[in-house]
């Protein structure tokens, strides 16, 4: 399917480095993921107390969305229901599932149980920015750029969405990766065409 839409910005978090539009904007010393995420949060000076209640998947996705939307994105261009999220990963909420199940032996934790669903990260990002449009969470063994391109294009083509945050947010133990993309209809400075090839290149941090 040919696409006439654009990736306005991207944010990749991988191996202790945060990239915005392919360029590193933060490099962490801390190796455990929770420490890295908190130091990045402080580095960017964010003020959002709910961040500290989130699980690792929530923090990773929230942070990636915050950086993705910093500089350039004006949510006032859109009505709340015109912006949606289509995210995916390999391990669903398994990172938090194991933590939650540890508590079941003692006193089951409702605060952890609510995070035992992968789409909670979509909820966190939607709450932060007031996005009320289509949302979907898909699970695949690896990042499936072709599927994301196809699904999101269908939503934008039919004016179901005017803007979409899509991509990958995955955490399991010390392995993690986030790659979020902002897709819009209008071409903006630094935007690239919304194609599976460009998604894959940005995901893998390759030029072009």
């Amino acid at each position, binding site marked *: *399917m040919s696409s006439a839409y654009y990736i306005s910005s991207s944010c990749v978090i991988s191996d202790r480095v945060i990239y915005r539009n392919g360029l590193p904007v933060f490099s962490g010393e801390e190796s455990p993921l929770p420490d890295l995420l908190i130091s990045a949060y402080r580095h960017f000076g964010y003020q959002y107390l709910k961040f500290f209640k989130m699980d690792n998947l929530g923090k990773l996705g929230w942070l990636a969305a915050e950086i993705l939307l910093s500089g350039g994105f004006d949510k006032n261009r859109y009505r*709340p*229901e015109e912006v*949606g*999220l289509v995210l995916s990963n*390999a*391990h*669903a909420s*398994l990172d938090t*599932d*194991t933590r*939650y*199940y540890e508590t*079941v032996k003692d*006193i*089951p*934790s*409702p605060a952890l*149980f*609510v995070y*035992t*669903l*992968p*789409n*909670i990260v*979509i*909820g*966190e990002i*939607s*709450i932060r*920015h*007031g*996005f*009320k*449009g*289509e*949302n*979907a*969470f*898909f*699970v*695949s*063994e690896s990042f*499936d750029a072709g*599927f994301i391109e*196809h*699904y999101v*294009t*269908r*939503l934008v083509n039919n004016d*179901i969405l005017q803007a979409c945050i899509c991509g990958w947010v995955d955490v*399991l133990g010390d392995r993690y990766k986030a790659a979020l993309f902002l897709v819009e209809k209008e071409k903006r400075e630094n935007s690239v065409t919304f194609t599976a090839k460009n998604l894959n290149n940005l995901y893998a941090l390759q030029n072009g």
Partner: protein
Amino acid sequence: MTAVYIHADNIVSPLGFTADENFRQLVRSVSGIKQRPGGTISPEPFQASLFDDIPQAGEQYTRFENLLIASIGDALRESRVSPADPRTALILSTTKGNISLLETEPFSSSLADRVSLHTSARLVAEHFGFVNKPVIVSNACISGILALLTGMRLIQSGQYDHAVVAGADVITRFVLSGFQSFQAVSSSVCKPFDAARDGINLGEGAATIILTSDKQYASGIRLGGGATSNDANHISGPSRTGEELNLGIGRSLREAGLSAGEIDFISAHGTATLYNDEMEAKAINLAGLQTVPVNSLKGYYGHTLGAAGLIESVITLRSMKENTIIPTLGFSTMGVTQPVNVCSSLLQQDIRHSLKTASGFGGCNAAMVFSKE
């Protein structure tokens, strides 16, 4: 836009292993919910709709995978759609899949792989010889409707001609303890929309709907339109206004080319929690659907999580074919602040267009319109 038709369907639940058996049980007001003794799933006795036995497809499959295989197998048996056709998609819906393996085995990378939904999806796809990589939807309690919507969209975009859409969840200690920790589980059979409602029951089950764009395979009902939305309000509590579910309902109706006055029946989510049912009643009012007969099937099946949207859609399809609306088991006294027409006895009436709704954790909502040809 390409029309997407219902071709075949199935429900595997404690009430029966085919859609017909299930519908007949509901017509007779039979519920799958029973008191269960304390044990491995819960230290205390609890009410739930659980299988005593499930069909076994092979030793390599888990309980969750066996359920999916039983449901897809039955739907395919009455179908002319072939899994081997490169134009056939497989779409699976679940919230927790094989999570019970965490309860019995120490965590390791090989266990993580076995628990992963893509492993189950691959095994199920291989069992039937699907040639396309399965699509897996895991979006809390709207997963089933979202899977159906995804199937419709993939067909409409021209990528596939047919989609086998199946969902399942099993109830284990992991899931029950979580809902209990939220004080969300009723100690009796749940009472959707009722003044005395005090929470959900959980249930196990699987369902399958086969979609097609091939009119020759059409069974008389098509997907008119569907949508999802997000409350952007709270991760574990529904919207206080119902505005966002109403957004989804409105977009579904527009896509189906219908006005509110043309909807004959609503199959609600109706979990029997205080907040869900109240939110749904508000959304139904905002949508102008307050006089339309509405039911919840949670009193028969409990909340079957990733299977719920599909099980309730299959029953909706049977209701449309038989022009028979199933009563809301457990409902007697109106318990929501907005007027809704909760169906409490078996109702015979012509149903041309139906609406199915669902909402879940993460603030997600979904709606789907079914229309007779």
